């Protein structure tokens, strides 16, 4: 599986090359890639449905248990099929939709990378790997939302989505690390076999909190939902793909995946039901008020995501099955509707439902497709949506949780779903044609074929549910529950309570649709919805953060170099000095001044030259004294067994003097700018720092040192490093990576010098 993911990433980065041959190639090739992946995953269906799982692992960082481990079971296969299947349709659609954009190759690079990341996410068996792919989907989503980056609103929306989902992801990371510490493994499949471990740990609440935040931000649950409607700035294929069918379901996937590991507790159940229900109701109420087709669809997506979270929270096998069916049905009809909204937008020039009327005659195929998708969203028999709605109602009532509030809320929001579906489909297509900004024609082939097939799929799956869906739903619920379930899905259960409720929902929904304006008026005047605006608090938070940063920076960044140094040195004196004197009694500092005359003279020369440099009245004296200090240090290296250092120091000191001399006669005259009292203050700070360092060295050198590293290097230098000069072996072999970094820095310094001087030259010439 690692090959498949690598291949997808690789193909993403190769797309710009094809763009050079033909501007249409990237779209076509990425469609083929998605289709190929779909076939690949479909070919594993028999294996997975017969109850097996496919596991693969390639070592990456085995020492800390991070590996490229992949795990294909029912749940991940379902997602992989959705990602690649809907992906194929979206890519095909986009290959036409994005044709005229200037940077279409870039678009397909992002979109294909997203697909690869999303596949990696659902296939990961390793929590760290899962986190990495989760972040990759956030990053690619950021790039795609901000695709029209010349628009202010696009940039704002992209950043908002990145901050919200990225923050959630980082918090999730803390939870993942905690699980790794508690369980000693990051492997999901290992965790699955030891389910009680995390749940019974005292940190369970905290871990659950991080996972919920990660999932809720990603899946746009209240109060983090606001980024999703903003994300509609993205080109429509992106909205259909990322922000409806796949990426926003990553949170749901995470919850489903972790259900056996973190689920089953009251805390889990209640928090999922609470947030899921609030999201479900709140979002669908907001959706009705919108006029932008995409915004309506976005809010209704948020609502469905809430429903899915709630169903996972209820957690009975009926609820999980309802979740899976709703997820499939929603992915299919919502992707279709999004693509249709894109078609309407590109054919008519507007997405405002108040401006669209009677498109049915101009766009018959699109109309038929839209009707099919709408019927599935309505939950009309024999569409897949019908089974979804039936099982949803059934599981909510059957669970008996929060009776009668939960069933009532589900009923109300279902009514609103009908209204929303009607607004999206009936309103623009029915009635007499109203003139639009552009002359309306039917969509081109590549833009209608995909949605049409998808919408038919909703019908086919509905009719054939018993045969086509039973085994996959059982397989998926087996991976969510971690046991084998054996249940037959049926389209028709007879005239029972759920059926009558379904019918009632559709009827009430249609009536509501007819008189929705009354509702909108009431809501817009009275509802608390206007006060509950997380996006408002998000803006407040971001601007507050900026203000804080400005205040803090202007406080610390005064523009005076010496202030910075004084702050650093005072901190050093206070913290290091305090720690040192508190822990080491002065009586333990017994410096040993035994030394030969040469050594005394050498030390004296350095101290005196240093003093000369500080006191020198002319630059030349300072430079010469500086040179004396350097050469004396080289002699110290000679005396204490470091010939390599001595050689280097001599060479560098020579170069350094030459360098100073080159610049010397352009240097300004040596001047004393500062006041004597200030010099006194500076001397006190510098002197105390120097004194503390001296005392520390006194103390440290009086302790015997047994260096294992020294022993290791001396013993392995010849046998492994093939060299007798241990220092050089360390530099070019044992610690060569360090050296590589250092010489890179050197190279950059040289280029920096060069460019600075060239800049001066060019300015002079102008």
């Amino acid at each position: 599986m690692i090959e498949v993911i690598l291949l997808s990433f690789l193909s993403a980065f190769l797309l710009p090359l094809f763009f050079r041959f033909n501007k249409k190639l990237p779209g076509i090739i990425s469609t083929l890639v998605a289709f190929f992946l779909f076939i690949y995953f479909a070919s594993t269906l028999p294996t997975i449905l017969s109850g097996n799982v496919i596991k693969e692992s390639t070592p990456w960082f085995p020492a800390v248990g991070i590996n490229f481990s992949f795990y294909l079971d029912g749940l991940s296969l379902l997602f992989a099929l959705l990602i690649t299947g809907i992906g194929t349709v979206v890519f095909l659609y986009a290959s036409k939709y994005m044709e005229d954009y200037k940077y279409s190759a870039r678009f397909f690079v992002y979109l294909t990378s997203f697909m690869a990341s999303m596949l990696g996410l659902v296939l990961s068996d390793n929590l760290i790997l899962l986190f990495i792919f989760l972040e990759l989907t956030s990053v690619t989503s950021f790039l795609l939302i901000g695709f029209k980056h010349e628009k202010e609103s696009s940039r704002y929306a992209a950043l908002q989505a990145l901050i919200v989902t990225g923050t959630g992801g980082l918090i999730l990371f803390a939870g993942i690390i905690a699980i790794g510490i508690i369980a000693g493994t990051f492997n999901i499949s290992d965790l699955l076999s030891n389910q009680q471990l995390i749940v019974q740990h005292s940190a369970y609440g905290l871990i659950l909190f991080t996972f919920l935040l990660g999932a809720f931000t990603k899946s746009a649950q209240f109060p983090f939902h606001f980024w999703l409607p903003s994300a509609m700035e993205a080109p429509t294929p992106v909205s259909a793909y990322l922000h409806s069918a796949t990426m926003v379901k990553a949170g749901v996937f995470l919850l489903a995946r972790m259900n056996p590991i973190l689920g089953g507790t009251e805390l889990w159940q209640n928090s999922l039901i609470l947030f899921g229900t609030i999201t479900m109701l709140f979002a669908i109420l907001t959706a009705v008020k919108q006029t932008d087709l995409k915004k309506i669809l976005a809010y209704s997506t948020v609502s469905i995501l809430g429903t899915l979270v709630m169903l996972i929270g209820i957690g009975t096998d009926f609820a999980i099955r309802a979740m899976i069916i709703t997820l499939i049905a929603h992915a299919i009809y919502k992707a279709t509707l999004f693509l249709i909204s894109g078609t309407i937008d590109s054919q008519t020039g507007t997405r405002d439902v108040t401006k669209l009327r009677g498109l049915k005659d101009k766009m018959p195929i699109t109309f038929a497709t839209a009707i099919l998708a709408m019927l599935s969203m309505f939950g009309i028999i024999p569409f897949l949506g019908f089974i979804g709605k039936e099982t949803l109602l059934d599981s909510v009532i059957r669970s008996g949780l929060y009776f009668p509030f939960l069933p009532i809320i589900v009923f109300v929001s279902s009514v609103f779903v009908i209204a929303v579906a009607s607004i999206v489909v009936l309103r623009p297509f029915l009635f007499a044609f109203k003139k639009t900004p552009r002359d309306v024609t039917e969509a081109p082939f590549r833009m209608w074929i995909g949605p049409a097939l998808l919408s038919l799929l909703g019908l086919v799956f509905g009719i054939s549910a018993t045969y086509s869906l039973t085994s996959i739903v059982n397989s998926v619920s087996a991976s969510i529950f971690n046991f084998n379930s054996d249940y037959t899905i049926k389209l028709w259960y007879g005239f029972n309570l759920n059926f009558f409720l379904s019918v009632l929902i559709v009827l009430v929904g249609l009536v509501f649709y007819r008189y929705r304006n009354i509702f909108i008026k009431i809501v817009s005047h009275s509802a608390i919805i206007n006060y509950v605006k997380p996006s408002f608090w998000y803006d407040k938070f971001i601007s507050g953060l900026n203000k804080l940063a400005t205040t803090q920076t202007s406080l610390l960044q005064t523009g005076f170099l010496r202030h910075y140094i004084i702050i650093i040195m005072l901190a050093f004196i206070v913290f290091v000095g305090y720690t040192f004197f508190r822990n080491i009694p002065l009586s333990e500092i017994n410096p040993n001044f035994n030394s030969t005359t040469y050594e005394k003279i050498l030390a004296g020369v350095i101290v005196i030259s240093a003093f000369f440099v500080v006191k020198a009245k002319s630059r030349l004296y300072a430079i010469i004294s500086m040179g004396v200090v350097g050469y004396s240090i080289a002699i110290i290296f000679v005396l204490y067994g470091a010939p390599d250092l001595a050689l280097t120091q001599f060479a560098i000191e020579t170069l350094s003097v030459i360098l100073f001399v080159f610049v010397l006669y352009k240097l300004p005259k040596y001047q004393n700018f500062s006041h004597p009292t200030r010099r006194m203050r500076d001397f006190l700070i510098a002197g105390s720092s120097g004194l503390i360092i001296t005392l520390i060295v006194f103390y440290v050198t009086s302790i015997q040192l047994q260096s294992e590293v020294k022993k290791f290097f001396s013993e392995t230098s010849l046998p492994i490093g093939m060299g007798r000069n241990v220092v050089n072996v360390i530099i070019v072999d044992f610690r060569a990576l360090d050296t590589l970094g250092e010489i890179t820095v050197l190279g950059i310094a040289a280029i920096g010098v060069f460019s600075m001087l060239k800049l001066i030259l060019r300015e002079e010439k102008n």
Partner: protein
Amino acid sequence: MYSIILSSTTRIVTPLLLLFSFFLLIRGHNEPGGGFVGGLVAATAFLLYLIAFGVLRVKRLLRIEPLFLIALGLLITLVSSLFGLFFQEEFMKGFWLKEEIPILGKFGTPFLFDIGVYFLVIGVILKIIFSLAEEDKD
């Protein structure tokens, strides 16, 4: 500032210094020396030439742009590090030839790494000094 003594000494000393730097480089793995010191000494040799004859002459002597030496040095160190990956081993793993090569002695990827360092150091020092010297000229 032309000086006969300086220029005639330089003519002899520069090749000697270059030879010495090469000597430091190849014996660096077993005796004091190595790419860093060798590179510094080689740079000093060119520097001496620069002081005696000026920046144009030394550029003619060197023939290559110092920036090229920097890039070459980095490339050599990188290539020497990549050997490990080619042979399914760790990055930067050292490989040595079985037989000794005349003059150079034992040859392996760490030695290649040292050669890269040697070129880079020459390039860096010369680039800095050349930039300064050229600016003075303008």
